[in-house]
């Protein structure tokens, strides 16, 4: 079951999601996690200086018994790693899961990587895993991610008032987002199909 999680390569138009393992941990990746611009809206990593050891424990947590997935977001043509994407909190009883995303390579911000990575995870969650509800939590000032989720049809279901503290000391609201499988299907039928696929294990 754990090994099976390493086999899901998600292929998009410009980007692809490759299972992220210990072998992908690099100084560059750790550098993203410690970058105060990249990590300013991440909840956990910015409170602790990230090292090879902390990152190793984090990555290994994706390959233990609890069902969750971690991918490296890479360029489709060169394979360059530019970020990571996660599908965690998978609950088969409820048919739900929560996504996370970090585009660490800042020169790819605004290049459609977030949208495509989320679309790939949507398809994987709803088609491959058969989930019915996909969730995300963002910080209110994370306008770029809020924009992407709203654009992809997620509904902002609620607000976590003053739930998160920024490095500046300011408290900000959290936004709870969700997309249902039927909403995703309806959007797909209405949209022009894009060339996306999952490479068969």
């Amino acid at each position, binding site marked *: 079951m754990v090994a099976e999680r390493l086999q899901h390569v998600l292929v998009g138009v410009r980007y692809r999601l490759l299972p992220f393992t210990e072998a992908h941990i690099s100084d560059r990746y750790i550098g993203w996690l410690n970058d105060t611009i990249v990590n300013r809206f991440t909840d956990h990593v910015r409170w602790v200086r990230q090292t090879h050891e902390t990152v190793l424990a984090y990555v290994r947590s994706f390959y233990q018994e609890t069902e969750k997935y971690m991918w490296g977001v890479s360029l489709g043509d060169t394979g360059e790693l530019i970020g990571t994407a996660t599908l965690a909190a998978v609950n088969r009883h409820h048919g739900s899961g929560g996504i996370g995303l970090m585009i660490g390579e800042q020169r790819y*911000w*605004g*290049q*459609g990587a*977030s*949208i495509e990575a989320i679309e790939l995870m949507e398809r994987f969650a709803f088609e491959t895993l058969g989930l019915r509800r996909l969730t995300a939590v963002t910080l*209110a*000032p994370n*306008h*770029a*991610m*809020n*924009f*992407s989720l*709203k*654009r992809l049809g997620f509904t*902002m279901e609620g607000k976590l008032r003053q739930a998160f503290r920024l490095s500046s000391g300011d408290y900000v*609201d959290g*936004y709870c987002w969700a997309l249902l499988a039927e909403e995703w299907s309806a959007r797909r039928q209405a949209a022009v199909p894009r060339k996306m696929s999952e490479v068969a294990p």
Partner: protein
Amino acid sequence: MISKTAQKSPPRDRIAHVISAVFGIPAEAVTDDDSPDTIPQWDSLSHINLVLALEAEFGISFSPEDVMEMLSVRLIRLILTERGVAV
């Protein structure tokens, strides 16, 4: 600095003028139906630039909820109108 063109013929629609400047498209071509689906340059990063440009143009500060909802020219106009801004 205001260009000669702008001095001669100021845009009738301030929102269209801002969108034109941010996305590099003619102001005359901007319609209320325009959105990230019709303007490819309108991505997550340029959305932030658009918000900052609108705030500068109209002298207001948008809430995070406003920023989240501004996904078409029509919605931008609606939000500005609700804020009592003449657009």
